């Protein structure tokens, strides 16, 4: 009973996946597809339907954030966003400062739609700018120009109270000086939040194939480490602080929705391939929707939802997930919250002798209340998790 009350206080996030893009970027392995003609109405209806079905089954906890992700959700009709926002806010109590984010790609058409999205209820835009260097934009296979990117930012700034944008760095051939220049340019345009991702080669992408064939190379370990360090320094000078490995914000401007993931709180996921973590009767479930949009649509039309996985997580699984998400945060994981969420003590979830070794090596800090990475540890988080988790 107590857990439910706690939970009620915490609220829940909502992720809505839009699976379509104008073109497939060569580095991208997100669940996204290029469609000749997007069946706007069918998908809008199905998303609303799946949202209704899902919300009917969960306790009435306050909604803390909505995130339209993709794919390219700025390709949906603003009216679709409106219908989804209305559905969610009418079926769930709404918490103060409900954050509603839309990922938008900065092409001209989409730039023109930003105002309508605002009127639909979106109050935060996350722009996929990726680079401020024309050659790099081309290499990344992007559909927009630097001019359009800046235009999008200018328009968005006038409309939305909160704005973030994404850049991909540590790209092929990029020098540290070039990146510092590009980053400073970006910071001058920044409102209060930035996501700065080092390029990752994902299996199954065009880049992965080219990488295997030796056609692309990435900066080596030393250079990419230096780039990460300099990034933290420069963003700091502009008043933005890293709060997660790749995310930087002015204090208070952190993405509430993404913090839900990292703090391992509940969220609902709807739309093709969306994941969720939802507590029902004090059990935490991992949920998944059919990934293929066509299949997803069929399922929703037939059953009102396209749930493909609903799995109760064991304490060990929860512990793993909470640590691998939570240690990405600069603030780390709170032992008390951990125990409450996972049903096991943090000190039982990790290999304690390894923990001391990692603390001694100055990779982790641990004071019995909070476990977090040091800047040195953050650079090696994957290896640390592998060594630390039982």
């Amino acid at each position, binding site marked *: 009973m107590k857990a439910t009350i706690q939970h009620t206080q915490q609220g829940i996030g909502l992720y809505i996946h839009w699976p379509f893009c104008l073109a497939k970027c060569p580095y991208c392995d997100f669940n996204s597809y290029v469609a000749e003609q997007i069946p706007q109405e069918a998908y809008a209806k199905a998303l609303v339907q799946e949202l209704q079905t899902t919300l009917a089954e969960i306790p009435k906890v306050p909604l803390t954030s909505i995130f339209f992700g993709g794919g390219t959700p700025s390709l949906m009709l603003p009216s679709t966003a409106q219908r989804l926002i209305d559905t969610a806010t009418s079926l769930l109590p709404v918490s103060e400062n409900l954050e509603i984010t839309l990922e938008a790609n900065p092409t001209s058409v989409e730039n023109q739609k930003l105002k309508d999205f605002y009127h639909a209820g979106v109050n935060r835009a996350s722009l996929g700018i990726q680079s401020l260097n024309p050659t790099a934009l081309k290499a990344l296979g992007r559909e927009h120009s630097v001019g359009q990117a800046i235009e999008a930012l200018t328009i968005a700034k006038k409309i939305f109270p909160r704005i973030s944008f994404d850049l991909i760095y540590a790209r092929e051939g990029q020098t540290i000086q070039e990146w510092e220049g590009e980053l400073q340019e970006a910071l001058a345009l920044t409102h209060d939040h930035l*996501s700065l991702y080092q390029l*990752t080669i994902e299996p199954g992408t065009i880049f992965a194939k080219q990488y295997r064939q030796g056609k692309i190379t990435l900066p080596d370990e030393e250079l990419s480490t230096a780039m990460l360090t300099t990034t933290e320094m420069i963003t700091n000078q502009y008043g933005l602080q890293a709060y997660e490995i790749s995310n930087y914000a002015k204090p208070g401007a952190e993405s509430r929705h*993404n913090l839900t993931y990292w703090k391992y709180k509940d969220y609902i996921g709807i739309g093709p391939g969306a994941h969720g973590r939802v507590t029902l009767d004090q059990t935490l479930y991992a949920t*998944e929707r059919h990934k293929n949009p066509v299949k997803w649509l069929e399922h929703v039309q037939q059953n009102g939802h396209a749930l493909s996985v609903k799995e109760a997580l064991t304490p060990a699984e929860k512990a793993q997930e909470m640590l691998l998400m939570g240690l990405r945060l600069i603030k780390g994981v709170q032992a008390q919250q951990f125990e409450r969420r996972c049903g096991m003590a943090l000190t039982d979830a990790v290999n304690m002798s390894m923990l001391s*070794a990692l603390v001694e090596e100055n990779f982790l800090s641990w004071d019995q209340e909070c476990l977090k990475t040091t800047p040195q540890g*953050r650079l*090696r988080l994957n290896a640390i998790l*592998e060594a630390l988790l039982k």
Partner: protein
Amino acid sequence: MTDTPLELIRNFSIIAHIDHGKSTLADRLIQACGGLTQREMQAQVLDNMDIERERGITIKAQTVRLNYKAEDGRTYVLNLMDTPGHVDFAYEVSRSLAACEGSLLVVDASQGVEAQTLANVYQAIDARHEIVPVLNKVDLPAADVEDTKNQIEEIVGIPADDAIGVSAKTGLNIEAVLDALVKRLPPPKGDVNAPLQALLVDSWYDTYLGVIILVRVKEGRIKKGMRIRMMFNGSTYNVEQVGVFTPHMREVESLGAGEMGFINAAIKTVADCHVGDTITDDKKPAAKALDGFKPSVPVVWCGLYPMDADDFEKLRESLGKLQLNDASFHYEAETSAALGFGFRCGFLGLLHLEIIQERLSREFDLNLIATAPSVVYHLFKNDGSAEDLHNPADMPDPSYIDRIEEPWIKASIMVPDEYLGAVLGLCTERRGQQIDLTYVGTRAMAIYRLPLNEVVFDFYDRLKSATRGYASFEYQMDGYEESDLVRISILVNQEPVDALAFVAHRSVAESRGRAICAKLKDLIPRQLFKIAIQAAIGSRVIARETIGALSKDVTAKCYGGDISRKRKLLDKQKEGKKRMRQFGKVEIPQSAFLAALKIDR
């Protein structure tokens, strides 16, 4: 067929250097005697095991009973034994020879006499065999019959005037070979009415029939239903089947003196099947046993470990079954900190080791790790005690050791003279001592004494590449000698990796230690912590390498809410860790040790 008069029986072996055509000739003889139909005639009928057929070598002695209608109009029973040609299996050769009265000495007329030709002939002479030289491959343009005869007389030292030129490939002159067998080899001796004395030549495990025993009846008669006694340990069994190989297994009522064949007596215990033992009649036992064989002594040992720790029991069972097939290899359980639970196994030589390993993986579907082969050292301690050491990891601290002796061999290497320089260089590098160097035409024969531990250490490979495969090599054990030997331990973060320890002569210790450290540095992935790799003699470090700590390993990209994917990725990494061994704070993948074991040190 079981009452064949002795004068109509001929028991013979075929001996030859590897690839000179022993198996092919056996096939022709079988075919000529109608043992198999044309359709059944599969190349090299006698090489039973997959490995034998693939590698084209005979590992186990094989036997076939043939009926041959000779010129004199009488039908003779010819019992043929095909023998292994490789030096590792010299022991099996001697067993086959003990079951026969004569040998066909096959020499490839295009190659001439090779090292194992010699070794095998000497064994046949020891067994008091009548020897009929056969010059094979006369169909080849390179065949030189006269020169080969000359070599047989000069190098081997037996008359070769009436050597028979044949082609086992085309079948040319096969009749002449059969004729010579009848005319030139003596019939066996023996008395069917005497108490039973049968020599246990070999035994193996047949999946359908259980343990099959190959016997040569010397005196008396062995019958179906008879109660037999193993003279070695007195155990008794009922004979359930008696038979011969035609080459198919065919049951007969009995086998009399002078004959060979198989028996099946539902034997379950390997220990009761002692190769070289005498089998007698439990009711009417023979007064004394036949001269047995010298027991085979493993000269090369290594550890065999399952890649998957769960396969340990399966490995134990498989080794047990294999041993039924091959009594010459030994095994005992051992544990290694680096590799887990496994077995210390002893072999007749390196090829034997390789073959057993291959059979384990092939016939029993086991994935194995083998540690570096070691020879057997004689260890004399300060307290006056002595022991045999065949696992370098067991070697005590030098301060306890008074002296160590290592085994030496006497090797004969025959090689075309243009490669002689390379061979002599290799032997010198391996601490060899030249005993003799002679020439016949353009071929040289070098006799060397060499420490065996230098030979188990990639000597064959080096010899082969230095002579483009033209050298032939043969050796005999040649006693033990005191030597300045040291145990080199390999340490990872100050902890010894037992599986990588090795013994070497002090003069090469440092270079080999350095080589393995360098190799490990390449093989071990960087980790969160620095890794120190050292080679040491006792507490003295002779080589070191450091693997720097990993400087960056973090996923930048955000996967949104797909935490499952991250967790699965992590699970996969942790799964990989099961194959790792802990050394202090670091974990080393077993694959790194495995690859290190493969290098030629």
